[in-house]
């Protein structure tokens, strides 16, 4: 049984959504119940497959790739179907596996206009294949394919089911990301052609082989290659100043789209950094790390200021993502295993918390038909449970110890005090202080949001309206996230245990780790 899971678990998780999507294509459009059931079943099956993989995963050896499948794929270009999972990708895979079924449950009776559950759910499933694929791919071309597969369904989700300004947001999202991907592809190809295996002299796309193969690169070339990947991943994260697609995309996307975008898709970028350029090009990484750190810290403050200026709740949450991903990138830029762990924790925590916040925002929008902060107020009186959940998520998001968010922020700040050897310590310490100040801003905008939406008394325009409190599908979709936030907050080892080994092996090139 274990061998079977080891061989087939990942592949099943990867392609089951596609199978589900194909089945759904043959079901009549009007048969909505069937579509929902198939989609839910598929995503739960994927989750089960991922949990099975996690169950056979050897946690004492998390640094090694496990459940590896390495088969010939496109021999002409040396690309292989090479997938596997280690300590870095496992938590993110599980996060993906968890979020998608929850989104489908939430969709049960919350389909955005113009409805069409068939197309909507098929897109979500395709999206899932792309996300899972990105996290398991160990071949640059395979990685790139999955990385791009994610784009299209999201483009349609925003463009078809989005808000008033959806076309603009969708095209901006697509072009921006595709722009970065182009540079990334060039960087991948350059890496392929310029590197060669020290023993056989062959070119390779295999991520595990590349660190050895790339040792011979000239430092200038390596710097440029890193730069190309930096653009590709940095836009996806998004890092300041490449973040402007994010608020538009988030604001216009349907709730489900925002949740997936925030919870999983942003992590493709940070994960990419940890998986590809940093282990493969350690020297270039040292050159780039200060730049990344500074941009990350600017992003923290800048995102927070952006939040303070918002009048729309969803846009505010979107800007808060910029700030939170700043902490993650700060952790990554230290190039220490401590910082990487912090970043991974931050990624998972942000996925749970911000996903939750977008869910809540979506539910508020559905009830009030507006997210204009000025018009809201007294949510705790109108829908007390929803209000308490909002308060809970805000507290988690501002990094209250005991909830998940803190363990992404605090260790990242801690790591910045002592980055890996060879990095400018003074600069990182300044970044540390600035990042710490960022926590004040985070508290500021989230509490201000809470005060203006949840506290106080309802505005006059809602007099006589009755708002239903949290409904069953919402409870079903939210409870696992809330439990996750609390559980990770109380016992962060759920994540650190898994990631630690993986991070150590990725960072072998940095003695300071």
């Amino acid at each position, binding site marked *: 049984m274990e061998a079977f899971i080891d061989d087939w678990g990942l592949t099943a998780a990867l392609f089951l959504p596609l199978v589900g999507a194909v089945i759904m294509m043959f079901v009549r459009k009007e048969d909505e119940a069937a579509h929902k059931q198939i989609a839910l079943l598929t995503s739960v099956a994927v989750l089960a497959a991922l949990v099975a993989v996690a169950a056979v995963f050897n946690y004492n050896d998390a640094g090694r790739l496990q459940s590896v499948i390495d088969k010939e794929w496109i021999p002409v270009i040396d690309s292989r179907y090479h997938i596997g999972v280690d300590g870095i990708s496992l938590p993110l895979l599980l996060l993906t596996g968890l979020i998608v079924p929850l989104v489908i449950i939430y969709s049960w009776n919350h389909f955005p206009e113009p409805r069409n559950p068939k197309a909507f759910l098929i897109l979500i499933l395709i999206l899932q294949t792309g996300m899972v694929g990105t996290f398991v791919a160990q071949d640059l071309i395979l990685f790139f394919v999955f990385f791009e597969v994610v784009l299209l369904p999201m483009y349609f989700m925003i463009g078809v089911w989005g808000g008033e300004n959806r076309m603009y947001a969708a095209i*901006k999202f697509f*072009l*921006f990301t595709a722009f970065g991907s182009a540079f990334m592809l060039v960087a991948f190809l350059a890496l392929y052609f310029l590197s060669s295996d020290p023993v056989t002299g062959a070119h390779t796309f295999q991520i595990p082989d590349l660190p050895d193969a790339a040792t011979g690169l000239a430092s200038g070339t390596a710097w440029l290659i890193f730069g190309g990947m930096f653009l590709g991943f940095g836009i996806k994260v998004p890092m300041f*100043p490449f973040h*402007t*697609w994010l608020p538009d995309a988030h604001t216009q996307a349907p709730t489900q789209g925002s949740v997936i975008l925030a919870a999983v898709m942003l992590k493709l970028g940070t994960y990419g950094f940890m998986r590809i350029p940093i282990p493969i090009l350690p020297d270039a990484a040292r050159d780039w790390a200060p730049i990344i750190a500074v941009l990350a810290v600017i992003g923290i403050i*800048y995102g927070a*200021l*952006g*939040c*303070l*200026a*918002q009048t729309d709740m969803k846009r505010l949450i979107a800007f808060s993502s910029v700030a939170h991903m700043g902490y993650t990138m700060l952790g990554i830029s230290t190039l*220490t*295993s*401590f*910082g*990487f*762990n*912090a970043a991974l924790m931050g990624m998972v925590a942000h996925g749970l918390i911000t996903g939750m916040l977008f869910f809540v925002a979506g539910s508020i929008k559905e009830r009030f038909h507006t997210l204009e902060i000025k018009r809201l107020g*007294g949510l*705790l*009186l109108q829908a007390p449970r929803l209000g308490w959940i909002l308060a809970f998520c805000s*507290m988690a998001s501002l990094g*209250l*110890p*005991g909830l998940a968010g*803190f363990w992404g922020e*605090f*260790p990242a*700040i*801690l*790591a910045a*005090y*002592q980055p890996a050897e060879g990095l400018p310590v003074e600069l990182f310490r300044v970044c*540390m*202080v600035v990042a*710490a*100040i960022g*926590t*004040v*801003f985070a*508290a*500021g905008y989230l*509490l*201000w949001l809470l*005060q203006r939406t*949840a*506290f*106080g*008394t309802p505005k006059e325009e809602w007099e006589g309206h009755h708002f239903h409190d949290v409904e069953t599908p919402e409870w079903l979709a939210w409870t696992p996230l809330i439990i996750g936030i609390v559980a990770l907050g109380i*016992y*962060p*080892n759920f994540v*650190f*245990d898994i990631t*630690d080994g993986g*991070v*150590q092996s990725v960072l072998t090139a940095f003695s300071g*780790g």
Partner: protein
Amino acid sequence: MSSLLQHVWILPALMGLSFLTILFFGKKLPYKGAEIGIFSVGVCLLLALGSGVAWIDRSNNPPEEHGATATAEHAGEEGAAEEEHAEEEGAATDEEGAAGEEGEHAAEEGGEEEHAVPPVLTEKTWFSSGGVDFTVGTFVDGLSVMMLIVVSIISLLVHIYSTDYVGGDRRYTHYFAFLSLFTASMLMLVMSRSTVQFITAWELVGLCSFALIGHWWEEKPNSDAALKAFLTNRVGDVGLLVGMIILFFAAGSFDIPAINEAAATGEIRHFLLLVASCCLLAAVMSKSGQFVLHTWLPDAMAGPTPVSALIHAATMVVAGIFMVARFYGVFWEGFSIGTAHVNPLAVVGAVTLLFGGLLAFVQSDIKKVLAYSTVSQLGYMAMALGVGAWTAAVFHLFTHAFFKAGLFLGSGSVAHSVHSFDMKQDMGGMKRFMPKTFATFVVCSVALAGVPPLAGFWSKDEILAGASGSGGLSGYPVMLWMGIVGGGLTAAYMTRCIYLTFFGEPRGKAADPHHAPHESGPRIVVPLYILAGLAIVAGFANFPFGPESIKLRFEHYVEPVAGYFPEISHPTFTLWIAVASTGLALVPIGLAYLYYWQGRFHGLTERVGLARAGHTLLVNKYYLDHLYTGVIANGTKGPVARATYWFNQNVLDGIVNGTATVAVAVANWTYRYIDQGVVDGTINGSGAASNGIGQALRQFQTGRVQQYGALLFGGAVVLAGIFVFAI
């Protein structure tokens, strides 16, 4: 018994369980969850007293060196069984604690002081990341045990009091849930072993403070106050985070005793310690309401009064003081407390002490008087720590908790009756209606003013002795005088407060014939009696005279004697300071008495006339009245206090509010111009450019085949020309 010291984690665990139970099942219970809270705190109090007895036992018979670091790790399963076991024991030790005090200590005499009493430490790895173990554990020494007892006592009394005070509130259950959570966090804070655990608890008490200040969040001022409290504390938390990170890297550990030991033995560079101390000082300033970051504390009075008593007088606000006491090795070395004659901590404390005291004069809201008084007393404690009088500071923390909680609860009792906190508008003459409240309030006030032999006198006197440099401490003369003046201010404003509340004729709502004020019920009065009683006797815990068995017991048991604690000197009882501080407590009371009582009846000119007639030698009214009313009182009440208050409200608060306004303005500007303009503009610009180029090229696309052909041939001709002639 000693196993209890290793299992003190049961206390916060119990309160945490109580929080969850109340939160999820509270509304279904007959007393809406209050009974769970009271029961749990009661058990906690018994356990805390039990651990107190255990600790006394341990310091009398310190374990031998080899058993010193008893870091036995006990598995979690034992918890349940252990808890019940400990409960019975705790109950039994109640009397034992009282009886044993004399008997046991008489046995051991002298020489005991030098013996190191190792703290009881337990440790578990919470999680590890990147080769760093984050540990949690308990760190029990005299200080923690003392804090456990204080927190449990006050929390229990506040729980009982609250059942009446907030009875019928629509969020009654939530209220008790948060009280439980707060108690749990506070208990965890005082027994934290690792800095990470400390930060966690520190933030959690902040959260509870936020939730309870904003308990009536329907009104905007309340939620504003809650926000202000949280944000101001966050500012300090930046210091806390940075400071703790520096300490972690400097000492290579999250372990508080290890950090202190590393600091005390000089393993850490002095500069690092100085930076860390300054960072931590920021946290102290925000949490303990020290000058410049204190403005949230008076605003926090928007919360229910029992909450003010528990959180904003007795426990949470002293967390900052507790932190300094806990990390005394760091501060001692960082600020060179032992050798310097001035340092930031002492200065901040002394300034806060005067500043807070002056502000208390111009308040008409009874809770605000008490709030500023709290600020001022916290300043005393900070100053005491700054001048090296560790025990005095902690002792003042101990006594202050009782009488200040008593004062707050007393003010709540009055307000509960007249439905207002405004002394000038709605009170007066309450003595008639509420004799019990009046009696306890006066006792607590006198204790606060520092009149012997009540609690405040002993602790305050010790602080002043410490500042004077007696007992081998380095002297801090400026702090000494500021402390003495501050003591005088305390006495005067408390007298004013009592006069306005309890004497004179009823005014406003107090005079409402339909709702005549009445004495509060037993659930309010009994806690008041208990606190007043403690305010009387608590001072004797560190009585400076007498045989060994009574003398300086507090110092003996609470002050750590171990490697992690710097070797500090102890102030000795100095007669002139005691007289001066007593005088400066009594004279202002007398002056205030003359001003308010007499002045009320005779008016200014008449009093001047009486003075001319010459009444008694001591009460040289004209001269003293003039001096007091004209120079001191009017001076302080009028320009100085008003100026300070103006400074407070406009400059400091202005800075606080201004910072927010500026931040929002900057944010708006950045968003509008930089983000939407420049950054986004670049992106949209590139889109527009490609669109424009496309539009231009579109002109060529006529759809007519022949035109395409012509272009094709034309192009071919041009290329041919280039090939033929150019190449």
